[in-house]
């Protein structure tokens, strides 16, 4: 029984309830403050959890480091802060949550992004108002995401996976692009329907696993994986992978993503890209690899192939985008492709890379979407052609940050985006022994070219948006460059991007797979 972890789950959800119970006018005023405080507490709690995890069991001393960190099977859960309660015995479902070095960083990322979103909402909210509900929904999403990252029971995983759907749908549907009501509704509905179909398919996979192994418990399943690479295990692996691929999203199941991101409000985009996509990749690592190792081997080349296509197709699509939020959304497709490739290699390098890229992408794309939102708010459109060029002259600081975030996103060594992609490629250079190496070498080369494409479209974005003759694009009368709240919100993201880029061992040390 771990009070801390349960508190991390319960506090945001309960706060959301309280917010909804409070009278509207009052709650609208205090929502952002309450949300910031609560999500700040959650952030502190999650960091505390991490420190707690690193502290060796035998009394105080130095934290665990690379040499001392235990070697673990890839993706397998080594539970910490465990809570295991009986819940629905007839269905063999338990309320079993625990965390380990794979999930805590993601939980910290979740807490951080939600905290920043709440903080951002202190000053900047969508025009339509209804701040109370927005903050409450953000907190519910936080619960769902943290729950997914800490679920040990497959059904619980599925449950938390679904928790975020309706809140996110509402966030897009209500607070989305105010100029395009039909479009935002469509985007929201497409998002929620595709995801729900994916998760239902994933559930089928879980049930097949249960039929084969007789349990939903990841801990047990990790110790006794489902053997066999054909038949039922294969079907289970395919179904689970399909379901998670929708969420991730892997090409060609990504079709919901550009619309959803483009139409969502700023905080919605940030959470969608920063957190929700991670649920898919986390699931692949946590469920597919340790539970269905042999079946995963069978599908890994296909997973890798689709990921590689995602890298190329996502990057190429970015070239033809005229909407800055859409462009960033498509860039996520490419980046998630790297994560998929890393997972598909089933090698320690690839997995660590995927995990690192998860975190890095959350930070960087979060920042990018914040910036895109800021630019959109200032111009009342996210269309590149309408916004015009020469942002360097009009909004120098925001523009500078955009350049920074773009560079980080294109995988500049020394910033967080690099290590994950580098390790994914390294994993593809030397995939697990059971996988066809030549295939993965081809993937590696194509993905490598994908990094060039990534660089190219980001440079194109910078060129078309930040640079240009300022004389042609006069300064907007009341456009403010980088307000205080924006600075406050984005600084942590920038700082962490740099810190993780220069000191990857802060995370990599603890993913020490065999």
């Amino acid at each position, binding site marked *: 029984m771990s009070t801390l972890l349960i508190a991390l789950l319960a506090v945001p959800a309960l706060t959301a309830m309280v917010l909804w119970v409070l009278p509207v006018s009052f709650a609208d005023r205090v929502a952002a403050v309450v949300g910031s405080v609560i999500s700040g507490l959650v952030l502190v709690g999650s960091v505390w959890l991490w420190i707690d995890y690193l502290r060796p069991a035998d009394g105080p001393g130095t934290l665990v480091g690379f040499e001392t960190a235990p070697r673990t099977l890839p993706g397998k859960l080594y539970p910490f802060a465990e809570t295991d309660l009986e819940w629905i015995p007839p269905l063999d479902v338990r309320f079993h949550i625990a965390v380990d070095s794979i999930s805590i960083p993601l939980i910290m990322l979740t807490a951080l992004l939600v905290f920043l979103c709440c903080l951002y909402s202190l000053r900047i909210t969508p025009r339509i108002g209804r701040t109370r509900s927005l903050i409450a929904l953000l907190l519910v999403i936080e619960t769902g995401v943290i729950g997914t990252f800490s679920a040990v029971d497959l059904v619980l995983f599925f449950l938390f996976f679904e928790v975020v759907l309706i809140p996110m749908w509402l966030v897009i549907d209500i607070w989305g692009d105010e100029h395009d009501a*039909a*479009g935002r*509704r*469509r*985007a929201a*509905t*497409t998002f929620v*329907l595709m995801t729900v179909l994916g998760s239902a398919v994933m559930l089928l996979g879980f049930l097949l696993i249960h039929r084969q192994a007789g349990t939903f418990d990841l801990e047990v399943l990790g110790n006794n994986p489902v053997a066999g690479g054909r038949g039922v295990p294969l079907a289970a692996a395919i179904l689970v992978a399909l379901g998670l691929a929708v969420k991730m999203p892997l090409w060609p199941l990504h*079709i*919901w993503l*550009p*619309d959803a991101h483009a139409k969502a409000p700023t905080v919605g985009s940030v959470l969608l890209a920063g957190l929700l996509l991670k649920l898919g990749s986390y699931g692949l690592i946590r469920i597919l690899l340790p539970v269905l190792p042999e079946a995963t081997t069978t599908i890994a080349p296909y997973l890798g192939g689709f990921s590689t296509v995602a890298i190329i197709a996502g990057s190429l699509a970015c070239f*033809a*985008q*005229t*909407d800055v939020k*859409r462009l960033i959304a498509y860039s996520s497709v490419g980046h998630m492709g790297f994560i998929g490739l890393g997972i598909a290699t089933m090698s320690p390098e690839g997995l660590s890379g995927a995990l690192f890229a998860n975190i890095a992408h959350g930070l960087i794309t979060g920042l990018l979407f914040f910036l895109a939102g800021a630019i959109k708010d200032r111009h009342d459109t996210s269309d590149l052609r309408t916004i015009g060029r020469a942002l360097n002259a009009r909004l120098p600081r925001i523009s500078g940050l955009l350049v920074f975030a773009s560079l980080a996103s294109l995988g500049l060594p020394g910033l967080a985006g690099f290590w994950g992609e580098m390790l994914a490629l390294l994993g593809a250079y030397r995939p697990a022994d059971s996988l066809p190496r030549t295939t993965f070498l081809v993937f590696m080369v194509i993905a490598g070219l994908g990094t060039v494409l990534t660089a190219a479209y980001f440079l194109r974005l910078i060129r078309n948006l930040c640079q240009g003759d300022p004389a042609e694009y006069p300064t907007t009368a009341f456009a403010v460059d980088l307000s205080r709240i924006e600075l406050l919100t984005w600084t942590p993201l920038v700082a962490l991007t740099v810190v993780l880029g220069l000191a990857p061992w802060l995370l990599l040390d603890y993913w020490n797979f065999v």
Partner: protein
Amino acid sequence: MPLVLPLLLAVLLFCLGVYGVLARRNAITMLMSFELMLNAVNLNLVAFDAWRLDGLATGQTLAVFVITLAAAEIGLGLAIVLLLFRGHGHVDADAARDLVEQDGGIPAADGAGTAAGRTAVEKGAAS
């Protein structure tokens, strides 16, 4: 008498009943057709009972039940038809169509219904 004769008759009766139900507009005729169908059932039951030499005469017992049941149904049915007549002035089953959906559904402007998959992918993005 071979078993097949009553069975055949029963099938004929039943089909006649089905035809009546489907083809006749008058509600009372329809009720009568139902009677035909139920009587086909009774015929079947009695025939099987005899064929089986059932010591408990289950089939015949059930036949009695069915007769009762038919009476109850017709009773209620006639009451409903009466009500229909009071309201509509006729007893044509196919003319009672007040309850058909009137509005033709929701207006198309409300996009949510059709949004199951309609994505505005790349609206003008290629340009």
